[in-house]
């Protein structure tokens, strides 16, 4: 298993109650697998309009494979400006 740290901001930080959390996923796991894990660990994410996942400071596609040491961040709907 690979241990990933997931960072949170804004509404995601309120749901998780912390600036980050850790989760284990099998080698070869994708962004889509991480999304399922997030919803399993914190069902309240299902109440958001949507959320994206950023990998190494860019929006990640569902099929991207996670690599140990990736910077992974939950991106709730943005509202800058």
């Amino acid at each position, binding site marked *: 298993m690979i241990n990933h740290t997931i960072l949170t901001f804004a509404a995601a930080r309120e749901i998780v109650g912390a600036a980050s959390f850790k989760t284990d996923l099998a080698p070869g796991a994708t962004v889509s697998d991480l999304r399922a894990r997030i919803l399993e660990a914190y069902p309240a994410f299902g109440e958001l309009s949507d959320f994206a996942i950023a990998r190494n400071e860019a929006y990640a596609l569902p099929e991207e494979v996670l690599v140990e040491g990736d910077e992974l961040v939950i991106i709730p*709907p943005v509202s800058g*400006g």
Partner: protein
Amino acid sequence: MIDVQISDQPLSIDTCYNTVQDPSCGGICLFVGTIRNHNQGEDVSRLEFDSYDGMALKEMRKIGEEVLELYDLKSVVLHHRKGALDIGDVAVIIAVSSVHRKAAFAGCEWVIDRLKERVPIWKKEFRGDGSFWINARP
């Protein structure tokens, strides 16, 4: 030229203007986003911005690169605040310069629209009926 910044200090319209001004340009367009005192029929007392700075700056720079390709602009500046803001404070400044005015107006609007779509910055409103992260919930 592209300049992007995220700051917890007040933004300067003069700085943004001076950064884009150029002798070859006949037009400069500034958009200044400010904190208004109401939303969805409720009084708003203050706001807080959270930002994923590293990615937000990258996305802002990408928007700058794209707008310079799409519109005939000389320079573009995107400055965004973070932290606690009061009513009337400046949340964001977009400045663009171009040889002729039409590209400046269009490019400036394009930049603020893209910023609102994809830059990872979040606004929390404090108002009479509670506090809410804007756009977070249906």
